[in-house]
């Protein structure tokens, strides 16, 4: 976030505060799998553009992330899941995401899916994420703001989308090569490719480079 962007933001009204639904699974919560809790590993905070919000991640994602030893959280931004609707556009949703992130015990990885990727990209310009993961991003700003704290960025797009102009623009903006996964965007939560995609993301997060 540039200083100028911050100055502008302090001079517009802050989005209304809402009681946000946050789903959390900690490694210690998992009774059926042997998960090693890694206190060094960054927590992961997920959001999606789908209306289910945090609930979309409960079936598979949160447990699997926690299974890798990370604190796993998902947030429903305003109007999603059990979070009440409140006025505000993408900026307000990015604000919800930042507010959820500062409530986590440590510097978090931001994972955004679909339209949620746009909120995550904006949030990463206001909060120094440990890493930024954009899954099947949708409606991302043409020139996404530069993330603060220089986090590593992962872009995952489905096969049919890999050659699209949008994916290309994001690739150029962040200077990262996209990772492609089989299936369509809606499959990332339950489809056959979901586990494979998630494991790829988790191993990328764990990589030291």
């Amino acid at each position, binding site marked *: *976030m*540039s*200083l*100028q962007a*911050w*100055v502008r933001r*302090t*001079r*517009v009204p*802050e*989005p209304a*505060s809402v*009681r946000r639904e946050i789903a959390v699974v900690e490694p210690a919560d998992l009774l059926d799998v042997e998960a090693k809790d890694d206190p060094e590993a960054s927590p992961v905070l997920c959001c999606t553009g789908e209306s289910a919000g945090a609930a979309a991640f409960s079936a598979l994602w949160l447990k699997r992330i926690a299974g890798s030893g990370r604190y796993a959280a998902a947030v429903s931004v305003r109007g999603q899941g059990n979070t009440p609707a409140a006025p505000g556009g993408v900026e307000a949703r990015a*604000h919800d995401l*930042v*507010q959820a992130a*500062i*409530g*986590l*015990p*440590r*510097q978090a990885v931001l994972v955004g899916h679909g339209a949620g990727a746009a909120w995550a990209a904006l949030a990463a310009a*206001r*909060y*120094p994420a440990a890493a930024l993961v954009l899954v099947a991003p949708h409606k991302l700003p043409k020139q996404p703001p530069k993330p*603060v*704290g*220089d986090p590593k960025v992962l872009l995952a797009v489905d096969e049919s989308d890999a050659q699209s102009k949008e994916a290309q623009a994001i690739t150029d903006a962040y200077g990262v090569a996209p990772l492609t996964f089989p299936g369509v965007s809606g499959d990332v939560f339950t489809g056959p490719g979901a586990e494979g995609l998630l494991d790829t993301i988790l191993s990328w997060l764990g990589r030291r480079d």
Partner: protein
Amino acid sequence: MQEYSSQAAYDRGEAVCVIGAGAAGLIAVKNLRENGFEVDCYERDTVLGGLWNPENQHSPLYPNTHLVTSRSQTEIPDFPMPDDWPDYPSASQMLDYLKRYASHFGLAEHIWYGSEISHVEPVEGSRFEVVVKPAAGSAARRLRYGAVIIATGHHWVPNLPSYPGQDGFRGTVLHSSQLKDGSRLRGKSVLVVGGGNSGIDIACEAAVNAAECVHSVRRGYWYLPKYLGGEPADYALARLRRRPSWLRGFLTDRLLKGHRELSARMGMEAPDHRHTDEEPIRNGRYLEHVGDGSIRRRPDVARFDGGEVAFTDGTTVRPDVVVLATGYKPKIACCPPGLLGVEGDSAHPKLLARMFSPRVETLAVAGLVEPGVGTLPIVHWQTHAISHWLHIRKGDPERAANFRQQVVSESAQYAVDSTGISPRHQLAVDAEEYLAGLGRIIDTLEQEPVK
């Protein structure tokens, strides 16, 4: 003579030494870590949070301290406060916030508590040797660092006036920092000296708790409420900055008019400066307490006389407790004054752009400004610039040198122009101009090098 545990200093290579683990120190550590530096942060007390922590034995907190600037103008830009907190958080929330910040970014492991830096000395050109004096007895250690950031703040050394006859005064005389507990005022006749924010807050505290409250103020201030036009006052005023300048003056005037007229009605001297020149008083209750007579205003104290205090207008009171809310002196004891540009009669540092040492390029001071807005964001951008600059200096000395020139020219704007009214006045900067200058410095730093 200093006694050292070993002859040779321990060399920490390119690591940076941060002095103080208060708000400014924590922000400095986080931003340095973000730029890939190893950091050792030394705190003389045993807790973090600096002046916000009542467990800090030197804490200047007085009863019921709240922020005087609103949440959105005070929070650290990249780590906002929870948005369900009130507009003006309390000191304990502020401490909670700083503790969250420290644990969120894993800063605690870089802090050495109970370690005071007794001396900082440049060696080998731009490197530093620091002497760390542990609180508990053991011998001092010497370490070498690539750079030093001083983040000790300026609310530690009370500025104590001395009035004729003060030594023979029969009541209690306290500095505001010694008034830890509001119950000391209960049922007493209280005289509060000093018209700054702490004096006003304590006068309001005494207005409801003490038997009687007299408030001595020697000059005019801007009295702003905490809310203006249905919004937090600092936010409402900052918003006007988006307007064109000709309209801005008019709108600002309209916003402040009611309160200016009210303070004139209360018989207060009109301020001799613009409201942005100096930190205004931000307290909505004060004028009401003056209006209902629970605070009686008096001019400057002339002398103490046995049990009495006489004012310059000839009136007297017989207080049980005198609270001197006369502020603090900025003082940086660990560093040779010359390195900070302290010269001649002035005891005030002359820093480049209010943060860089004019002598050694790897020495900087964070948070030695009174911007009239929240200080945390200012410190964030200062340390952001400092750590970026140290980072560039490591890889590209040529760019670093160009940058140095820009800082020198930027800093010409913030030359200390003392008005001599009050010691703290000398730290005042116009937040708008200062931030714009910091913005230009940061932009230069973040530009891609020309290849």
